């Protein structure tokens, strides 16, 4: 640990923050001195964005203190943070593209003369501000929408400086830049340093971090792993600090006996062309994992329960009452939702908007008389809850990443308040960050009382997520395993070389 240099500009102590019971930040300390570039690195989900939002007033911390120039601060919103001298340059710019540079820089605090905006003063001040950070080619009268990304970034920075920012947060500033523009940003960062501004620099790209920063703080799973002088470390060390979490922390906690409710879905001696003599019980609050090889009947089971290829024999009861699941519509009416393994082929409507995709099921079976506006509002809330990242809810869903598409699909089903959720390979083809978000969502749904059945070929996922596991083979249930089963246990049942003891 290097000594923190004196006269810290910004000091964070013990910052804590949780969302929906999930701890995102756990006692993070950090400080920034004048003229310093302090880099913050960590994997997706390490808590960087949340920390930056707390510093810039977007979120209030659950605990800990934020001090500017040694004076404790309580930010009730971004404006308070601005007033305290903290500016943030988001990854996504916050500019009005039809307005000029000067209008954007002074947005919300325009110089006023006799009740009218004084455009001349506004232009002059903007020109001076731009010149002071070495930007001479950018005209204050230029329309922001016509500028390149790099220049828009300069406008964002000028906007922060116009509010007398002394601490500037840059969140992935190079993400949108072309290679040659990165050099320009480097120059800009150095001029900001010379002005004595402290920079918090969040980036994935370690090259930049080593090029620019004086100190580096590594976050992992919401905790500060270490803070090092950049000169004393190297890429390998840094990466070692960033990764390497334990399997146990990968998956959300399992259900406790308090979480488990009554049997919600029961299948007795049911079968169809692909399934034989299936007996199954699914309780409220639990995640039942279904393992087995490809073609063992796992998907056929989910599709039978959802009425796609219904059971032809046997009996299914929901909350003790017999139900006939003859079609997806009847299954949906009974409170069952199904997230397919073939997202592209049958999970999304690729060329329709995020919103249209999320509304699809509600429009098909939702109460016809429930107000359109209320319904749309609710779906928007759900999209926010599952944290879909998109350019807007009118963006075509095919342009989203697999993980975000899956979240939209999830929102579509959550809009129907399902009591039973069938997930078929919910994280297939999804990047690591979104994967754990889906895991958390699945577990949260169970904790809220839904009965969850989750099919997975990914054995660590199956074992990490499930409260109980059934393994299928040749259209039958080959056996059931407890939560602490091993990969070998699952495989043994799936291939069936060993005689099972429990049936």
């Amino acid at each position, binding site marked *: 640990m290097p000594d923190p240099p004196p006269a810290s500009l910004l000091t964070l102590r013990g910052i804590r923050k949780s969302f929906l019971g999930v701890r995102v930040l756990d006692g993070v300390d950090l400080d920034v001195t004048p003229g310093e570039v302090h880099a913050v690195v960590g994997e997706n989900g390490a808590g960087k964005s949340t920390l930056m939002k707390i510093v810039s007033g977007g979120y209030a911390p659950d605990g800990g203190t934020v001090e500017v120039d040694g004076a404790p601060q309580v930010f009730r919103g971004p404006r308070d943070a601005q007033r305290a001298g903290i500016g943030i340059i988001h*990854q*996504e*710019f916050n500019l009005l*593209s039809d307005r000029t540079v000067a209008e954007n820089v002074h947005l919300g605090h325009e110089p006023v003369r006799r009740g009218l905006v004084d455009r001349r003063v506004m232009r002059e001040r903007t020109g001076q501000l731009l010149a002071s950070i070495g930007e001479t080619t950018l005209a204050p009268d230029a329309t922001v*929408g*016509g*500028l*390149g*990304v790099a220049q*828009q970034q300069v406008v964002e920075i000028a906007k922060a400086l116009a509010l007398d920012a002394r601490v500037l947060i840059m969140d992935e500033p190079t993400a*949108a830049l072309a290679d040659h523009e990165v050099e320009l940003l480097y120059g800009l960062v150095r001029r900001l340093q010379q002005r004595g501004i402290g920079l918090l620099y969040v980036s994935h790209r370690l090259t930049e971090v080593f090029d620019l920063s004086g100190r580096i703080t590594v976050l992992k799973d919401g905790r500060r792993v270490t803070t090092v002088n950049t000169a004393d470390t190297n890429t390998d060390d840094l990466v070692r600090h960033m990764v390497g979490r334990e399997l146990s922390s990968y998956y959300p906690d399992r259900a406790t006996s308090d979480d488990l409710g009554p049997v919600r879905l029961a299948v007795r001696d049911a079968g169809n062309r692909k399934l034989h003599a299936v007996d199954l019980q699914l309780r409220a609050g639990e995640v039942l994992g279904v393992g087995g090889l490809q073609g063992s009947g796992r998907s056929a089971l989910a599709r039978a329960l*959802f009425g*796609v290829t219904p059971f032809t024999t046997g009996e299914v009861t929901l909350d003790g009452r017999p139900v006939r699941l003859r079609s*997806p*519509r009847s299954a*949906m009416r009974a409170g069952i939702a*199904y997230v*397919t393994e073939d997202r592209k*082929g*049958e*999970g*999304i*409507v*690729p*060329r*329709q908007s*995020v919103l*249209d995709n999320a*509304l*699809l*099921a509600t*429009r*098909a*079976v939702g109460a016809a008389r429930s107000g*359109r506006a209320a319904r749309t509002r609710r779906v*928007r809330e759900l*999209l*926010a809850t599952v*944290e*879909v*990242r*998109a*350019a*807007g*809810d009118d963006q075509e869903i095919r342009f989203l990443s697999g993980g975000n598409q899956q979240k939209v699909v999830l929102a*579509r089903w959550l809009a129907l308040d399902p009591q039973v959720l069938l997930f078929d390979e919910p994280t297939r083809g999804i990047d690591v960050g979104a994967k754990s978000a889906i895991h958390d969502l699945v577990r949260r749904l169970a904790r809220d009382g839904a009965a969850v059945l989750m099919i997975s070929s990914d054995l660590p996922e199956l074992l990490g997520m499930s409260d109980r596991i059934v393994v299928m083979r040749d259209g039958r249930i080959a056996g059931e395993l407890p939560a602490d089963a091993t990969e070998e246990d699952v495989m043994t049942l799936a291939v069936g070389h060993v005689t099972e003891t429990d049936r």
Partner: protein
Amino acid sequence: MQIVQRRPLPLRRVRLRPGGVLPILAILAVLLVLVGIRQPSFLDPPSLMSFLGRSAPVILLAAGQYFVIVSGEFDLSVGSLVTAQVVVAARLIDSDPARTWPVVLLLLAFGALVGLVNGLITTRLRVPSFITTLGMFLILVGAVYLWSDGAPKGGLSEEFRRFGRRAIEDVPLLGRVPYALLVLVVVAVLAVALMRSDFGRTLVAVGDNPRTAQLSGVRVWRTRTVAFILSGLAAAVAAILLGGYSGVSFQAGAGLEFGAITAVVLGGVALGGGRGSVVGAMLGALTLELLFALMNFYGVSGALRSTVQGAIILLAVAVSATRSSSR
């Protein structure tokens, strides 16, 4: 949902949203300029109004065809349906004005019924709609000949013909407003409202990916059948206007199905479904009619109409196919 700014690359600002109406508006504007250069009087309100009235049937058929195409199907039967409607109307009205309204209602029911049959055969019997509606086309042609013993009988009442050939006279600024144009405006407003409703959004989703729609609880067969019914209804309204305008003949609706399909494709609607707007389809029809008017002004033979239509279909589909595969 977290809103991420679309990358403000200059290209993105210019790039058109696929399926939008901007390209067809641009083409329409160019054609208008060309027409204005060659025949400035065409753009006078009275002549423009009657042009719009004349174009109304094709625009209506394009709207009807749009519903079917955007849901992923085709309706080739509309041309012969229009013919059948006109011939049936003439024989049933037999120049008796008192029968006008009952027959109008009957024609609408007839159109809906043909659409229903098309839809059920396509969705329930799983006959590709291309074949279903081609069959319906042939059946209607033959049935009409049979029913009228080879020559159209009877005649339309003056009241019936009013929709297709009369206008509200002495309207300030516009001169005369054809009834056909009023009908068109009403239908267009209804069509736009329908496409904004749950049914409309679901219809496009069905065309885009019927499997997803099915698994989300949409009754795909019902949705598509309704689209065929809408197309049949549009054909009935078009037949009423056309019968009034050009009279009774076995040629009344000949070739209209291809005109409608060309118009829809020109309007930016993807064949195979899932993309495009009903406004685009109707503008496509207007553009096509304007193109024919322009060809007329330049003395191009009317015989080239179908050649031009064919070229437009191929070109429009090729452009949209290469554009969508390049992303």
